[in-house]
């Protein structure tokens, strides 16, 4: 586990350095890392530009800038948004909960139904239901998530008018109580979550199903059946338990996929999370915000990786030994 933690810290440091180096490696004046020369916010006066460079410390030698940057990143100072003139950290804090809500709910729902559905399909492999579910999963898992979202938006949102089309909650709403607020947020959450769940479910279902199919052919399953165990016990206690390991091992990768999906989904549904933030920042070439989102998302995915490694070690002592060395 210690080597994993070291690798985690090193990767995190690489992410931080990448974030620092990338804008500075590019041709052009350093200020272009903060302000796109083609944007309408650009200042043309040389004096103002020099003052801005001094303000952001861009006139200092690179190592000094680097340490100031690292210090800022560690203490939560990620610079200011050019577009909104607010600290990037504050913006991130305002958007992060929405993304966590969306990806967390979808990941949970998809995991649960992927495990149950995958187990059923593998148990009845070759049946019509299994084949239908497998084809649907390949389609759902590989179709672009924004296209799936558009279709849901059109049919469930616009045509039937059951669900709100955009946003995280009703603008300017006055809630009668906390319950009404939760209900409103929940209603806005349904379509984005459904879209993300479908896309993740496709991948998780196939993973569980294919693993379980090979586990069902193992000798210990034959022994268990020979002992006369009930089918339910065979399926849940013997087979699914072993399929859980690769499932957990892939969970971090699926968290990464969830983030990718969330960027598109939040853009499509105008959901006020990190994806929407990076989308708007890209539109305005608001580099500090783009970098801030990249940093936080990378840190989150890397942490998920570390957690999955740790959890897998707990689930499978053989792995823990291997990792511990």
């Amino acid at each position, binding site marked *: 586990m210690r080597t994993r933690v070291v690798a985690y810290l090193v990767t995190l440091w690489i992410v931080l350095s990448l974030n620092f180096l*990338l804008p500075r490696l590019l041709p052009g004046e350093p200020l272009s890392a903060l302000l796109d020369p083609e944007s309408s916010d650009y200042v043309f006066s040389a004096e103002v530009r020099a003052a801005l460079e001094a303000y952001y410390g861009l006139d200092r030698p690179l190592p000094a800038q680097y340490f100031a940057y690292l210090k800022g990143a560690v203490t939560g100072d990620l610079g200011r948004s050019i577009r909104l003139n607010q600290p990037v950290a504050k913006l991130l804090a305002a958007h992060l909960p929405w993304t966590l809500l969306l990806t967390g709910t979808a990941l949970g729902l998809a995991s649960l139904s992927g495990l149950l559905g995958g187990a059923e399909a593998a148990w009845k492999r070759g049946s019509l239901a299994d084949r239908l579910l497998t084809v649907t999963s390949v389609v759902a898992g590989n179709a672009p998530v924004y296209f799936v979202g558009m279709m849901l938006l059109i049919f469930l*949102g616009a045509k039937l008018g059951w669900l709100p089309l955009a946003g995280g909650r009703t603008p300017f709403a006055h809630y009668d109580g906390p319950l009404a607020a939760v209900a409103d947020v929940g209603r806005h959450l349904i379509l984005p979550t459904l879209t993300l769940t479908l896309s993740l479910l496709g991948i998780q279902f196939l993973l569980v199903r294919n693993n379980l199919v090979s586990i069902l052919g193992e000798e210990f399953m034959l022994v268990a059946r020979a002992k006369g165990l009930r089918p339910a016990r065979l399926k849940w206690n013997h087979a699914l338990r072993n399929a859980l390991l690769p499932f957990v091992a892939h969970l971090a990768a699926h968290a990464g996929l969830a983030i990718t999906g969330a960027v598109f989904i939040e853009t499509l549904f105008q959901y006020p999370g990190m994806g929407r933030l*990076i*989308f708007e920042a890209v539109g305005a070439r608001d*580099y500090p915000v783009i970098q801030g989102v990249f940093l936080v998302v990378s840190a989150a*995915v890397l942490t998920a990786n570390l957690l999955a490694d740790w959890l897998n070690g707990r689930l499978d002592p053989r792995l823990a030994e291997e990792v511990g060395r």
Partner: protein
Amino acid sequence: MSALSHQTERADRRASSLGLEITLGTAIFGLFVLIALAAPLLAPYDPHAFSGRPLERPSVAHLLGTNDAGQDILSELIYGARISLAVGLGAALGTVALGLLVGAVAGYAGGLLDTLLMRVVDVMLALPRLPLLILLAAFLGSGLVQTMGIISLLFWPATARVIRAQVQTVRQRGYVKMARNFGGGSGYVLRRHILPAIVPLIAFGLVAAAGRAVAMEAGLAFLGLGDPTAKSWGLMMRFALNLPGLLLTDRWLWWLLPPGLCITLLILALTYLGIGLEGRLHPGLKR
């Protein structure tokens, strides 16, 4: 009925279903390639020409109507195949070339170089790809060449890992050791023994990389990070969605749905082609 014949029967059925996947994937993919190649013959208008009034409904003159600038949507759709396929091909070649280089060097050289290269692969695989893609696209610009380059730069590690594993396995085999003991040089062994063993992996890698690249290009264009002058399917969807109240009329039917369906079909065709090829690679793989 003996157990053995039962088993072969099952294997046959599996083989035929894999064949179906490859056939279907190849057919749809081939159709898109034809459309892309014959775009000037098939498209009724120049996709950049203002051939009608803005936002026309479908008619005989404009089978899928016109967009908000008065350009023929069907022509945009047909020419869009060129962009998706060009980016898919370019990025797939870039991805596999990089992966092949790193994987073969690491697997064949071994030792410190191998450890070092695989560390880089580990780090890159751990990073969330889309935010990094957005960051790079925002800084490096959004031409089609940049898009291909960025996708290649981000997606080679998976290929490199697979190639390295295969090279390592083949290198350990008896006949390769023999060839070396008889004085076969590195170039000879690589060309004569290692390359044939990784050709199937390269084919699968190309198809998988092309599918990912097509999806990523459309996604970047959809997010507004694509080449603004290249009328790709992703950009069409972006412009369609930018129209206020698009979903409240039935305009989405001929403006939003066709590019969405095209991109989905192309990605699924490549996915199925990949699944089929993967099945050929590992005949024991149960799907």
